């Protein structure tokens, strides 16, 4: 059985299905269209970003990054990511756990609410916080009386980032944990494990890849968020500007080298994220394929 399947796959790889093969011109034509499209729409812009960033050499690039306002934007962006990713990690795991392992009233409502940040425009998300915490907002006077600044300050930026990144971890985990069911946890409990032991020794290892993947996506969004943060930031350079906001300001002031220098940093982070994500997908797929392969092998020999 396994042999037959292997043979079949082999034929396929060698392109043996002459009858269903498309004519040469069509294959080449379609490939060319795809390549040109990729080059113009993706690769060229990336090249331009880096070319412009380094148009005044390394020195120009370094000077642009080292400028205090840019540097503080980098730090603020990293701070927003460092706060929002762990918060969403804890929230995402807790929400996915509750949704997939228990039956309760309002479960569908919870799933819908988790999706909310995906479905509303980030601008609206920012407005929500302004309406809530701003000077003329519901809690504004109360906060002002206690000299707590949220809007046009760092807490507002962190809050907005947390809001827009809420769905990433939970969305990734819910289908995974629903598919895995409750039996392994029940088995752990029946063997005498405590709830925490079952969670750390059984649940977490089972959702490991999904969890890492969710964190990566969450992180990417936290670094790149523009809309919601833009509304609550107030664009105070050196204080409440994140990298994307700083890039916009620099660009609008015709400071192309510094703008593209910052942009190239964001692009680098994004590329790095993609590489890590790809690596994880590859590893997860491989460990899965291995398991399946060997199962089939054992079943065939049994």
């Amino acid at each position, binding site marked *: 059985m396994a042999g037959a399947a292997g043979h079949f796959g082999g034929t396929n790889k060698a392109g043996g299905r002459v009858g269903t093969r498309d004519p040469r011109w069509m294959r080449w034509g379609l490939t060319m269209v795809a390549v040109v499209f990729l080059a113009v729409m993706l690769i060229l812009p990336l090249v331009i970003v880096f070319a412009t960033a380094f148009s005044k050499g390394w020195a120009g690039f370094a000077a642009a990054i080292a400028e205090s306002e840019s540097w503080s934007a980098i730090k603020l962006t990293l701070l927003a990511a460092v706060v929002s990713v762990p918060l969403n990690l804890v929230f995402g795991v807790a929400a996915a756990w509750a949704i997939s392992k228990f039956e309760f009233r309002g479960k569908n409502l919870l799933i819908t609410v988790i999706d909310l940040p995906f479905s509303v425009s980030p601008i609206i998300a920012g407005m929500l916080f302004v309406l809530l915490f701003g000077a003329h907002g519901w809690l504004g006077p109360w906060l002002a009386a206690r000299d707590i600044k949220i809007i046009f300050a760092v807490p507002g930026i962190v809050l907005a980032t947390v809001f827009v990144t809420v769905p990433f971890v939970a969305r990734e985990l819910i289908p995974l944990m629903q598919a895995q069911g409750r039996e392994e946890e*029940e*088995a*752990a409990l*029946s*063997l005498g494990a405590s709830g925490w032991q079952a969670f750390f020794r059984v649940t977490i290892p089972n959702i490991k890849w999904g969890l890492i993947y969710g964190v990566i996506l969450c992180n990417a969004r936290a670094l790149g968020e523009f809309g919601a943060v833009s509304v609550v930031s107030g664009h105070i350079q050196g204080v409440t500007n994140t990298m994307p906001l700083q890039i916009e300001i620099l660009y609008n002031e015709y400071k192309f080298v510094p703008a593209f220098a910052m942009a190239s940093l964001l692009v680098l982070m994004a590329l790095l994220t993609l590489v890590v994500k790809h690596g994880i997908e590859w590893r997860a797929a491989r460990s899965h394929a291995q398991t399946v392969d060997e*199962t089939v092998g054992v079943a065939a020999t*049994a």
Partner: protein
Amino acid sequence: MSIEIQGVTKVFGDFKALDRIDLTVPSGELVALLGPSGSGKTTLLRVIAGLESADEGSILFDGEDATTRHVRERGVGFVFQHYALFRHMSVFENVAFGLRVRPRKLRPSREDIRERVMKLLKLVQLEHLGKRYPGQLSGGQRQRVALARALAVEPKVLLLDEPFGALDARVRQELRSWLRRLHDEIHVTSVFVTHDQEEALEVADRVVVMSGGRIEQIGTPEEVFHHPANEFVMHFLGNVNVFHGRVEGGKAVFGDVAVEHGETATATRSSEIEPLDDEAKPAKVFIRPHEWDIAVYRNGRPAMEAVVIHVNAAGPVVKVSLLSESGEPVHAELPLEHYRSLELRTGQRVFLSPRKVKVFFD
């Protein structure tokens, strides 16, 4: 350890999964919960384990109330239908899990754990596969790992949910007799759930037949098979021919046939005990396929005429499908030698006399 279940009821929404169940499992016995899907057998097993809580009633372990005891403290070994092995742990680690999660004071040393796991793997004949992962095992091997894992914590009760449900026929047969031998060896009180009557009758000391959240009958395999308490049990345990007839003067009458029904028919749940007067009462007459005598000529015994329509002679028992005069399908089974001596052909007219009938009043 003995298990006593007293008046346990469990409701899911509008569905009554268990309806005032009373059952006692004596220490050391191997009991099967047998029933169709939806009969509540798995729910009962999960209530015993503490994975589900009873809405009413109580569970006693060795006479001690364990109704509110957490699953962790019940000391039960549970084998799940789909094994629920920890997929990221090796077979060895799976079996060792229950020992490793113990509080430090009660935890055996590393060497002790190793020794015990190896002993268990040997018991389930998997000592060479300790380093494999669950995904690399066949269904039968996974089932045995699940069993070893459950036994590792030295449970006082072993609970198995459809233990052979997901296996193919041959592996199933092997594991069945293996489980029976294992139980004779370690003698832990065991309850297993199955919908397969053959499995229950072959493996268990006692069979509990369930349907609709209630217990229909409790008895040894022989008792439930030969002396079913009601129509449901009669139907569920093997094939049976049913005729609508009546009971008159101590005889079961259906069609042209009137036969003594040897044992006093026990009443079905809804009806009274058989009255002793001679008045005719409508009843259902049940005859198992192997309890027909087939004759080619009329021989003076009360018999039903029928025509052979199909014969399946593949196996030691020959299955014959017939059509009675009144147009009812009838199934009969007879030993191969007997079938050969009769020289039955399709289309042949034969005479069927029941050796034994079972009667339940309508």
